[in-house]
């Protein structure tokens, strides 16, 4: 949901890392049965390692701004609202508060209602990845849940509302840490019928066997993550490095202070959180 961008407040100096420690993306509670485990959620994906910045002809980094179609004036965050288009150019305004109140208390909990073998979930469902870390005081219950799931080789399934959207998640342990994979809802996956794929007809056994042999011949026991190397970005970085060494097209501009090294901070915060050192702010 493209929510109105609310200016993220910089962490108020709580004495730690000069306020540079990343805060969890979201905090909530996992429940299974009547057991509740308060957790902090951190993103487990980072997108686009080498984002290119848009610059002015002089090389100054540009900012993206919203402006009114009507007055053509730039708008501040508090001058914008969210609307649902019910007919052309007619909108129903919905506020943050209303969206917040539309989620009943129990819908905010990650209630593990069902445990299933992880490999039973078709990969079509998986969307984004997050890590869950125990929040202050919940280490015991957290470890109990992680270890139990590890031993039974099961993933817990739940739905929960986070930041104005409901998510379906599969939660499973990895190296003693709980990973939460958000999933698409059943009505967000098309069926072959919906896209009019033809149905299977009787097949000549020989053709199937031919493919089976081909599969056998090219089968590997293991999949190497080396196959998932981002070669495109490597190439881009090499080009950047070459130009930098030759002092070609290198511009220096004064930049105002801003949040830096988000990814590094994320890892640092997560590590801290897992080490149980994160004091309640």
């Amino acid at each position: 949901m493209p929510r109105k961008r609310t200016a993220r407040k910089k962490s108020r100096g709580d004495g730690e890392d000069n306020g540079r420690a990343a805060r969890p993306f979201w905090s909530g509670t996992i429940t299974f049965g009547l057991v509740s485990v308060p957790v902090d959620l951190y993103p487990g994906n980072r997108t686009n390692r080498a984002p290119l910045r848009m610059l002015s002809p002089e090389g100054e980094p540009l900012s993206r701004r919203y402006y009114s179609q009507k007055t053509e004036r730039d708008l501040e965050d508090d001058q914008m609202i969210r609307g649902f288009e019910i007919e052309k150019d007619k909108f129903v305004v919905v506020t943050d508060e209303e969206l917040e109140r539309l989620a009943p208390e129990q819908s905010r909990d990650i209630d593990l209602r069902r445990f299933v073998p992880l490999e039973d979930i078709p990969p079509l469902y998986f969307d984004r990845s997050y890590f869950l870390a125990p929040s202050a005081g919940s280490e015991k219950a957290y470890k109990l849940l992680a270890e139990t799931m590890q031993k039974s080789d099961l993933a817990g399934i739940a739905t929960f509302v986070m930041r104005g959207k409901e998510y379906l998640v599969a939660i499973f342990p990895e190296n003693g840490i709980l990973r939460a994979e958000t999933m698409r809802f059943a009505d967000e996956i098309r069926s072959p019928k919906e896209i009019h794929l033809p149905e299977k007809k009787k097949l000549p056994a020989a053709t199937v066997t031919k493919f089976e042999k081909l599969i056998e011949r090219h089968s590997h026991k293991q999949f190497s993550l080396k196959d998932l190397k981002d070669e495109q970005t490597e190439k881009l970085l090499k080009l950047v490095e070459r130009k930098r060494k030759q002092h070609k097209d290198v511009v220096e501009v004064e930049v105002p202070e801003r949040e830096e090294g988000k990814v590094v901070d994320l890892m640092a915060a997560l590590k801290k959180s897992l080490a149980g050192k994160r004091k309640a702010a």
Partner: protein
Amino acid sequence: MTARAIWKGELKLNSTKVPVKLYSAVKDQTVRFHILDEKSKTRVKQHMVEPDSGKEVPAEEIRKGFEVEPGTFVILDPEELEKLVPEASREIEVTQFVPPKEIPPEYYDRPYYLGPDGDQTAYFALAEALKNKEREGVARWVMRKQPYVGALRAQDDHLVLVALRHAEEVLSAKDLPRPAGRAPEKKELSMAKQLVELLKGEFNPKEFKDEYRERVMEFVEKKATGHKPKLHLVKTKRKTTSLNSVLAKSIESLRKKKAA
């Protein structure tokens, strides 16, 4: 709703070729809001401006640069970026087959259905062979100027190609320390195991509905007719009790539910 193919290609396994069409397997159902100017209740637009002066920079004057350190950019011109684009091709090259468990779930990104483009026999035979052999193909292709690595799978009778994330895009739990705190006790573990067993079942995605989406839409529709439905404030309170007694109570209540 008829879905149109978004791309056409050819699966290539060694020297065998299977022509296919590619369809998006997902339809996003998220409730879409527009950002509006509060005063005029009209849509807003975006543009790029110089942060200090607020002066708009038109698209054709925007340059792209990579920030090598704060404030230092290496500018890349359009020709240089164009050279990085991989060569266009219709080939989806399947390089190897692996057991499905080998690719961790966090690497799966966007799924596509493949449909036969002409030769249906080869298409369905490949799907059946993948199913029989319990294997998943690793495929590479270039689509819309982007290189992809994907997993080729049989989904019932049809073929599915799921684009995979780059290794660099996924944080690994192996790089993180194990959570602190004491190990669970034997009794707690055995009770937790019982509890999980009671909740064990098959994965049935239809069991889970996006109720929040329904609630938001209902609210919007009511509001559109001029009503302003009253919404209650959300409160949160939770009391803490010992893990042991909570586990025991949970098991008991689930057993009762099952027996009923």
